């Protein structure tokens, strides 16, 4: 079966498109933040204005190219939010959970994702700017990125509550509890507004390294579980059926194409 034919007949093609976009977005995000711009792991909070200028100079081209990619493709972040919102709509709980999640994440993406891209690009654009201003952009970028996790935290709690109350079996209950674990690690980032050094600073062992490890595991798990949901989904409104043994490998359009 060709990919086009498979996409024509697959009733879940929109869901698969959104899922693949989610995978593509998180891959892009990782490459841009960790490799191209090297804004993650974050720079030291205790840099002097002159050192901040050096930090920008060190990453000049990476910041411009990397964040240009984000400005072009960053809108795909909406796909993961949309798919998670769909998963909550598929549950037996009130729609208020889905809408609250959607609104919270749409708002959180501005300070938690867009601001750092804008601030760092502005800094890289004119490297001869006053060091004090460069230092301000540096602080603004990292603080907006790390210090605004509270909104994401509430989003995780909403997803958790929806999963634990759901009777349609959209997600396993342990994933509801994993949402709580993720939310609790996001609390830890709040003190980054206070500390310029130590384990709770925005690049600290507790506030960044442990949190990123938890968030990384959480992201991999929820992307896998969303894939599993699409495979099982009968596009109805009642309980989501279990997948028959062996069906998982054949359930998505690309697998159908590979299988011929």
């Amino acid at each position: 079966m060709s990919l086009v034919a498979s996409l024509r007949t697959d009733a879940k093609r929109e869901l698969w498109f959104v899922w693949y976009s989610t995978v593509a977005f998180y891959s892009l995000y990782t490459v841009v933040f960790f490799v191209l711009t090297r804004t993650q792991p974050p720079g030291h909070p205790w840099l002097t204005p002159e050192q901040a200028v050096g930090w920008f100079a060190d990453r000049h081209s990476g910041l411009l190219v990397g964040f240009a990619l984000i400005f072009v493709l960053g809108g795909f972040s909406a796909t993961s939010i949309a798919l998670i919102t769909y998963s909550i709509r598929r549950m037996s709980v009130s729609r208020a959970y889905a809408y609250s999640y959607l609104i919270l994440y749409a708002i959180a993406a501005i300070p938690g994702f867009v601001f750092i891209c804008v601030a760092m690009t502005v800094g890289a654009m004119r490297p001869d700017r006053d060091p004090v201003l460069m230092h301000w952009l540096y602080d603004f970028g990292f603080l907006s990125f790390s210090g605004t996790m509270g909104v994401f935290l509430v989003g995780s709690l909403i997803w958790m509550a929806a999963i634990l109350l759901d009777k349609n079996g959209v997600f396993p209950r342990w994933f509801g509890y994993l949402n709580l674990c993720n939310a609790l690690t996001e609390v830890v980032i709040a003190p980054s507004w206070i500390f310029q050094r130590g384990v709770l600073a925005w690049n600290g062992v507790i506030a960044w390294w442990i949190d990123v490890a938890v968030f990384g595991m959480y992201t991999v798990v929820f992307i896998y579980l969303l894939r599993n949901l699409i495979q099982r989904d009968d596009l109805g409104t009642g309980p989501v059926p279990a997948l028959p043994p062996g069906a998982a490998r054949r359930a998505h359009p690309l697998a159908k194409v590979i299988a011929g």
Partner: protein
Amino acid sequence: MTAVEDVHADPRVDEVEHVPGEGDMWFFVLFESLVFTSYFCVYLYYRAQHEQAFLKAQAALTLPLGIAETILLLTSSWAIARCVQQTRAGRYLSAQRFAMVTAGLGIAFLGCKLAEWVRLIGDGHTFTSSEFMQHFFFLTGMHAIHLLIGFVVLGVIVYQLADPQRRSRQTIETCSTYWHTVDLFWVLIFALLYIVR
């Protein structure tokens, strides 16, 4: 199996060894234990690096208060265990009372913790005054957040026990597992912050 069927299940079921509560909650226990273990490792690493500074700051803590807080939480663990026992025996009113006792002991612990924080801050030992205090306020603060969630969990127990149609032994065991976990974290925090010198 419905909640009502679950509660009125064959009493011989109790004689069979089983993991209490939902298996999913044990996932939470293991994952959260790993996270706390990583916090403890970080604390111990920094303590080993700056031993004298940590010892000096640690002297500001009141050991008897820490012991009293530990006794309060261990007693609350006993009370929640009694709550589960009473539920298994079908004595729901008594189970509800033990859940209330657990909540009362939790509130007493939180009151002691708040008083301790106020005293320390009054004496100039704040979140930013030293590296030890940074860890102290962080670890005790994170534990307090877990305890606050524990009050919601106790609320679920009381709500479930109040109505025969809602009673689910598994949910009550799951909730008590959460409470025991929070108590276990405190015992480890107490040992690390107050006892280890």
